[in-house]
């Protein structure tokens, strides 16, 4: 009976850790003065409404690789749109001359490197990818 309880607790803890590890968070570089953002403020930056953080500093939003699970999960959670819709949305903004889409990278490593090194960068990463060089400014509700 005790063995069964330990197993159940282990499975529950593993499930919690797994969920936490795969949860997406929005982060900025450690040197960025922003400490938190609302979901609306993240939509403003990622959907090209504003080109700056709320404090007026220019924001440089970064995207994950096209077609990656993280990118799909992020935009579904942010604006409830799939990647095809996001691509069409950005085609409209880009070719109307209103705004440029978030920066794309060939690999996640390059994206994470840019996130760590640029004070203007903002990105979305798995909670497990957060390290001391980043600051979590928003967590999506589970």
């Amino acid at each position: 009976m005790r063995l069964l309880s330990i197993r159940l607790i282990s499975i529950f803890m593993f499930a919690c850790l797994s969920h936490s590890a795969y949860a997406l968070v929005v982060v900025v570089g450690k040197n960025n003065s922003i400490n938190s953002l609302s979901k609306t403020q993240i939509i403003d930056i990622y959907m090209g409404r504003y080109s700056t953080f709320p404090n007026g500093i220019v924001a440089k939003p970064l995207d994950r690789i096209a077609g990656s699970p993280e990118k799909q999960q992020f935009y579904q959670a942010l604006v409830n749109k799939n990647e095809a819709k996001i691509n069409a949305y950005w085609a409209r903004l880009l070719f109307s001359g209103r705004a440029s889409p978030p920066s794309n990278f060939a690999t996640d490593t390059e994206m994470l490197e840019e996130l760590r090194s640029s004070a203007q960068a903002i990105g979305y990463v798995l909670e497990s990818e957060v390290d001391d060089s980043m600051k979590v400014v928003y967590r999506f509700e589970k």
Partner: protein
Amino acid sequence: MLKTLSTYLRERIYLLILSTFCVSGAFANDMVKLNGFATLGAIYNDSDDLGFHPNLKIPARGGFSFAPDSVIGAQANIEFNAQWDAVVQAVFRDKLDNKAINYIDVAFLRYRLNSSFEFRVGRMNTDIYFLSEYKSVGYAYLWARPPAEFYGKVSAVSQFEGADVLYKRSLGRGFLQAKFGYGETDAAIATTGSAVDIHFTNILMASLSYQQDEWQIRASFLDTKVDEFSASLEEVDQVLAFFPPSVWPGGPALRDRFDFIGKKQQFYGLGFQYDNDLWLVQSEIGFIDSQWDIERDTISGYISLGYQPDNITYFATLSAIEPTENNLSDSIGEISPDAPAVVAATLQSFRPLISEALNRNRIKQHTFSVGANWQLYPSLVAKLQIDCSVIADNGFALWQIYSEPSTSQTVNVSSLSLNWIF
């Protein structure tokens, strides 16, 4: 003279913006982002009498053709610093206007005062309807092309040279944008016969849009005057010289109806869109108020429903346009009671010509479209669309007339296209 100087100055401004782009590209490639778009589109128009064109700036075609919908465009975004940037967009497509400078759809400098205010100067798209700023980018919208009933007529003022200011701010859970612009534009536009050159001056435009979650609404207004028009009033003037007001008191009033100088043209538009990622509904309605009888008052609109279960979106659209006054008077006006009978008879014989001139630009039709939009790859979309247009008697001005139809017509246009962004 002033017009020549104005044209010269405008062209110098574009060249300045273009050369700025070239210099920036040479010295700081990271400042410049290059992107492009293309559509390879084929149409089949089943009418022998009427030529099809997506809007009045594009030559009409019958039968099978790649010309009306195929387009390739390139855009450079040049960011000088956080406040200043420039955008140049060149679009190559079949068009009535053969000036090289008019392959530049957009060339503007922008100054961002703060997060809410942006100022632009140069050549810009006129932001008075949903697709106004990206109508050449087939990848960016659902249909094979914008519904001609709504977009065709206002395409004459789809770009302008001047300045505008954008105000934007978060409001409640949504986002508000207001834009005001002022400028002028030249256009070569199709008639049922050949093309005419027209110059719109004192263009004043305003638009307001609000987006919240799945909803977006917009309202727009445009006011302009025509100050140059390549079709002359010479024939009317010759008749007036021959029959002075002492014989034909109604003559000057009739001339005034056809004269374009100082006549206002106004456009009012309303639009809404709902998109919950599975269902899409978009509709716009527009009203053109014209003081010039040659350009009648019209009301136009469309409603489109899309169902997007996966990578394919199925859609159906109903669009329509008609004049708000069906029967403009074709009276030749007052004739002096002292005029000899032969003179009165001669003047009355002009009545069919007046009627023809008034009907030449009359548009009355509706179109039912069905189609599908496939996302084949992240940057490639294929579209198939079938349009069935029912055109009323004397309502053919969205088409080129190859042979005069004796009665109303039904025309089917089938379209297949591939649309890229790169």
